[in-house]
């Protein structure tokens, strides 16, 4: 009788997560807690980090079935892996984004390319560390600071690295207010940071409506591998700018975007299981991702400094770092750094131009990379 009872109790305990918990789970639970702390206390991109941090904690509690096949977090991850989520995010981003600053000042678009040197620094670095060229390409694209694009390119080049790359991309995007300012300050003078830029021209409704159609045609013609993402972004933007389907624009920008953000963040967080995540390869990817972000920030600022010299001091070099993409976080960082030098300098609309160009820069880099590596 006592033997039976003891075996029953033992079997009951064995079914709980307690028996399967190991030190790696505790480390990752601590990582999840840090992400929650950054979101809730430091207010670093809470819309991303709350879901990622929470799902990371749950994924490392061995008893939970949410991340196992059939579980809700697992199903959410399938949406990411099957490339359903990234184009829908781009639809929402397009519906939320005013491309006016980029249309008004096309000269600043080049900063969207300049700020992507980090991609290639990380790519070459990853290859030197022994990754295959396809894996190195996927790691490099972290430097594009565009989460959905990083997921999209990774699923095409190195799907087995998706957890590490998506976590690195989204974590660094959320941590941009910490990563970028020291580099921006290091590469600019106080005088440069205080430059007040001229007002941009008015962009008419006709230009705003024609823009997404023209871009969709160009991207589908020149960059078919990444066309699904940019095309969806342009559809969302057309909803917004044509004014006649405001219900669709609002749904894409709010309801769809909110639902997809929940799906995406729990999907990413749920991939952070200790068994899969605590490896040397993860550490290498995290470091390379940071190098890519820092390299991109530096090259963007240097590119803007060069433009500033050519323009006779009319361009604030701080807008260069916004060319890294990550809309609108990077533009906000440029604005905040500029405000510290001059409280009346509202740089955000000027930084939005390179910031939006950065989205195209990442898409173009990713598209060319896929084409050169023979991936469709």
């Amino acid at each position: 009788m006592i033997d039976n009872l003891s075996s029953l109790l033992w079997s009951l305990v064995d079914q709980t997560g307690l028996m399967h918990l190991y030190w790696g789970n505790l480390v990752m639970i601590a990582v999840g807690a840090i992400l929650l702390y950054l979101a809730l206390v430091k207010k670093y991109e809470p819309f991303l980090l709350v879901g990622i941090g929470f799902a990371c904690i749950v994924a490392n509690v061995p008893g939970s079935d949410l991340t196992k096949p059939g579980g809700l977090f697992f199903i959410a991850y399938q949406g990411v892996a099957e490339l359903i989520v990234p184009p829908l995010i781009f639809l929402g981003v397009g519906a939320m984004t005013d491309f006016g600053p980029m249309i008004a000042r096309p000269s600043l678009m080049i900063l969207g390319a300049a700020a992507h040197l980090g991609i290639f620094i990380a790519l070459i670095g990853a290859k030197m560390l022994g990754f295959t060229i396809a894996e190195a390409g996927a790691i490099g694209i972290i430097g594009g600071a565009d989460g959905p694009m990083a997921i999209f390119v990774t699923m095409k080049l190195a799907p087995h690295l998706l957890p590490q790359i998506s976590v690195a991309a989204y974590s660094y995007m959320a941590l941009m207010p910490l990563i970028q300012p020291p580099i921006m300050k290091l590469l600019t003078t106080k005088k440069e940071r205080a430059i007040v830029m001229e007002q941009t021209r008015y962009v008419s409704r006709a230009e705003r409506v024609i823009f997404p159609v023209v871009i969709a045609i160009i991207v589908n013609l020149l960059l078919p591998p990444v066309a699904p993402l940019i095309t969806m972004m342009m559809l969302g933007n057309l909803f917004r700018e044509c004014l006649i389907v405001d219900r669709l624009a609002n749904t894409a920008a709010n309801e769809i975007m909110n639902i997809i953000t929940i799906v995406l963040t729990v999907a990413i967080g749920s991939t952070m299981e200790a068994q899969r995540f605590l490896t040397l390869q993860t550490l290498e990817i995290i470091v390379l991702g940071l190098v890519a972000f820092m390299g991109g920030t530096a090259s963007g600022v240097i590119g803007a400094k060069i433009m500033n010299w050519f323009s006779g001091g009319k361009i604030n070099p701080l807008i260069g770092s916004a060319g890294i993409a990550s809309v609108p976080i990077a533009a906000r960082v440029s604005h905040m750094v500029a405000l510290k030098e001059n409280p009346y300098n509202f740089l955000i609309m000027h930084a939005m131009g390179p910031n939006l160009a950065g989205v195209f820069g990442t898409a173009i880099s990713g598209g060319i990379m896929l084409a050169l590596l023979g991936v469709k």
Partner: protein
Amino acid sequence: MTIPDTVQGSILLSAIDFFLSFLIIWGIGLILYLFPYINKFFTLDENKLKSGH
């Protein structure tokens, strides 16, 4: 020609990608320079659009 899976290959891939990215972005910028001309041929009345459904 495919890109070789070597460090030299990664440098080649980076150089081509970076150059073409600049070229395509510059091309898009060039098209955007032409956008103000749209207003000479085409206008959209925002009030009519807003009341169109």
